[in-house]
């Protein structure tokens, strides 16, 4: 059985060597948007430049899903949608 991590509460299995982005997309999870946010999140450039796939790892920090190797048991969620209400 493949190891898995969690996207919010949903288990997502991954193959060894796979990035978080690859595993999420294979599981059909394309929408990484912060809840209630103005902007949408998704895997886009896959080279760590666009920052659209940045997700939060519980107990660690914010990382680009496209650069981050998946690890068993990691708990991932969208970034909190803070700091975008400038008006």
């Amino acid at each position, binding site marked *: 059985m493949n190891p898995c991590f969690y996207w919010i509460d949903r288990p997502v299995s991954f*193959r*060894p*060597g*796979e*990035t978080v*982005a*690859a595993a999420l*997309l*294979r599981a*059909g999870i*394309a*929408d*990484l*948007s912060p809840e209630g946010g*103005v*902007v*949408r*999140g*998704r*895997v*886009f*450039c*896959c*080279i*760590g*430049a*666009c*920052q*659209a796939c*940045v997700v939060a790892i519980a107990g*660690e*920090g*914010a*990382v*680009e899903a*496209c*650069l*981050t*190797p998946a690890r068993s048991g990691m708990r991932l969620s969208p970034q909190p949608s803070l700091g*975008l209400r*400038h008006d």
Partner: protein
Amino acid sequence: MTDLAKTDLAKTDLAKTDLAMTELPVLVVGGGPAGVAAAVALAEAGLRVLLIEQRDRLGGAIHRQPAVGAPQIWRGPARHRRNWAELASRLEHVAERIELRTSTVFLGIDGAGRFLFDDRMAGRVFARPVRAAIVAVGAVEKIAPFEGWELPGVMSAGGAQVLLKETGRPPEGPIVVAGSGPLLLAVAAQLARAGNPPLAVLERGRPWHKPKALARLMTAGAPLAEAASYAAVLALKRVPCHVGSEVLGVSETGQGLTIRVRAGSAESLLQARHLLIHDGLEPNRAGIPLPAPGAEVPVLLAGDGREILGADAAILDGQRAASAVLSRLGHAASAAPLEAALSKARNFQLALAEALRSKATPPTPQTMLCRCEGRRYADFAALPADASAREIRLMGRFGLGACQGRFCGPMLAELRGEALPTANPPRWPLRPVSVAALANFSTDETES
């Protein structure tokens, strides 16, 4: 302590510093063809090199290797494989002089001139003194914005290609590839070979209307053969390729996307799960500090991050940057005739750009320009017509978001006809870094 003793002490310190300087590594950021070529050339000349790569393995976007256990569905043009095998073997011969740090992100240069890195595996930021730096962080894709380009399901064509190389599997469901540039054909052909031929390829340019530019491309050799092989695959898999056609907008419908397409003056709708977009390449320069020539620690650019000349030229450009660093540091540098080859690559890129030159339909007011900050074309249009670059940043919030203007920067440059200057000096960190990693900050463990 007598004055004499003080002087001696100072001398000893100076001698130590000199010694330390010559033992300091040259920093190379980026483990793609340009960075690896530069690192190898420096190490072959006897210098120590610190090579930083954000991923867990070298290769960059072009030589991205499949993840362990992933099927290798497509191995790329033979010359790319040869080039990479040769670099890898040269790297092995000088490995003892190259300190390779993978899964490590370059964060920039702080106010004290320290080069900062985020070791993502250790969760720790560290600084290293270096003699010189070569930054070879490749290209970013340009995007001509249309309504909905920021939605999930829309990915850059280059991003999809990287993912395909890594996983060996194409995305599931119908795919449309659109924009402008040779990458559209390459990605479409690779998807077709991997078992999911796109519904359509939409190229905005009309190369058949540019016979002079096409004639110049015909002398290109290897890249031309590569393009022909992609065209053959697309013909075989019956993938429709349209020129003079572009995406006007996209919206979410159920599990997929509804894509509004223009071909000539006719509009139609396509249903797909994935839309892959790409409108050429731009050097990835956001936040890279470039000190004045003659600075104590020189910083040079190499590869597509300096000028978009392609993967073959990136290797030569890495060697060129290494030679420049070597002569700055007083070493004999090989004067290989690189300029002629670089200039050939430049002419090819110019002819390609001319063959595909086309104007995108202007964005609607609702079109997102800055995805990070949620700023639309209407927000840009509401700024005074004579707004300075600084006003566009501070009032419009363009270029202030997480990607630091890597994507909206080129869009605004296109719309204004003038580039947006970036913050000077650039501010670190260039990339997200956790407070915990910053709190674990250390200077180099080899420093005493």
